[in-house]
């Protein structure tokens, strides 16, 4: 059992600090955003599993030789109201911590999803009343507003792409196709679910800077993935020009330029439009297939390790 919790704790520390920092700094994710997204999800999932697993297996040591045995004898001890002999205070502390952390993570995940769903429903109602359908484009609606915006409003059954009159005024037909293809990719690839999970992780561990870093990295990766879908429909030049035009005409860019202190930290720290454009202009080649397969294999192995450690009763 000692080996289990020590290994899990080491894994949790590695995934809480050096691994995400290295991945966030690496250059290859821009060349294989889909693969990088899988790796980030594996890191987040394994990080949580090994954090809770380390506490759990340390806390369960007096209850049995391994996790499975420990979990089986725990309810009996709880009902009897007495701890097994040899229990230490630190082990009970770890056990409580594991349970609390697990509940906390699941509750934050649930509230994040419920809250987002509620806000979306309200927004969808407003969009229904204030926009008109675009007959030539399915699931696309036009709002009569001068600010040039385009966005995807994800839904459980059907997602809507919303374009503004201001956007249509500054883009030509090809550029509009690029924007619509980009937004539709968010909807069909269900990017909002991944983003919400990382949002929940960030929200549940606000004192944990890596969660914020992971969320920001994932947010840019889904934009790159959607860009790659748009590139199948339009040329890279068209996509670049539509990103650059919309970004430079962005109303909050003008608003930010007006703030005397040089705008919010968020805007300064996440130059996502520039990074998306740089990637398209420099024409970085996609990562070679063997490298992508290797990365996905690493991700699978990462998730498998704590699962095997926790369920494998061979460890003592």
């Amino acid at each position: 059992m000692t080996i289990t919790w020590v290994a899990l704790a080491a894994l949790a520390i590695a995934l809480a600090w050096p691994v995400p920092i290295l991945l966030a700094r690496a250059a290859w994710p821009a060349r294989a955003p889909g693969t990088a997204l899988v790796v980030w999800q594996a890191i987040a999932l394994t990080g949580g599993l090994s954090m809770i697993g380390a506490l759990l297996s340390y806390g369960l040591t007096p209850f049995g030789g391994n996790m499975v045995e420990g979990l089986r004898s725990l309810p009996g001890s709880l009902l009897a109201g007495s701890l097994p002999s040899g229990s230490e205070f630190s082990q009970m502390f770890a056990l409580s911590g594991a349970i609390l952390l697990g509940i906390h993570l699941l509750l934050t995940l649930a509230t994040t999803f419920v809250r987002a769903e509620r806000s979306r429903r309200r927004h969808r109602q407003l969009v229904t009343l204030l926009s008109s359908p675009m007959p030539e484009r399915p699931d696309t609606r036009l709002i009569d507003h001068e600010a040039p915006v385009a966005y995807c409003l994800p839904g459980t059954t059907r997602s809507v792409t919303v374009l503004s009159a201001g956007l249509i005024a500054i883009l030509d037909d090809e550029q509009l196709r690029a924007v619509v293809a980009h937004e539709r990719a968010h909807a069909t690839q269900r990017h909002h679910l991944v983003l919400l999970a990382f949002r929940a992780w960030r929200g549940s561990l606000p004192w944990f800077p890596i969660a914020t870093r992971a969320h920001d990295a994932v947010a840019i990766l889904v934009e790159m993935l959607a860009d790659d879908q748009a590139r199948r429909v339009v040329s890279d030049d068209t996509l670049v020009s539509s990103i650059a035009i919309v970004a430079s005409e962005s109303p909050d860019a003008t608003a930010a330029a007006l703030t005397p202190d040089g705008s919010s930290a968020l805007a300064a720290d996440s130059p996502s439009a520039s990074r998306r454009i740089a990637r398209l202009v420099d024409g970085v080649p996609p990562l070679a297939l063997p490298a992508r397969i290797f990365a996905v294999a690493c991700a699978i192995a990462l998730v498998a390790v704590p699962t095997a450690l926790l369920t494998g009763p061979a460890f003592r």
Partner: protein
Amino acid sequence: MDMATLGELERSVMDLLWDSAEALTAGDIRDGLARGDAAGTGKDLAVTTVLTVLSRLEAKNFVTRDRDTRPHLFHASTSRAAHMAELMHEVLGAAPDREAVLARFVGQVSPSEVAALRRMLDGK
């Protein structure tokens, strides 16, 4: 009636209420829909259908019902402009909840980034 048609009907009803200076009865709205039927949504609607749509809109706080008169009078709870402002605030505002609700084509842009992008566009 499928959801898309229902949504379009709700929009037509709200357009009438927003454009009207006075409160309207369900009958007024039915007549208004039949008259301005460019979208083809209000064809031969029964007043009961209009009342159903109005009740839905009332439940969502878009419409207020005056029960002191017979028939009931309906008016828009908030102006179209105020609703548009609410919508655009959610799209453009810096509210941290924004990214949980929707995905914008281009999100927040810093002033230095805008300057760089404008230079790039000019250089083309």
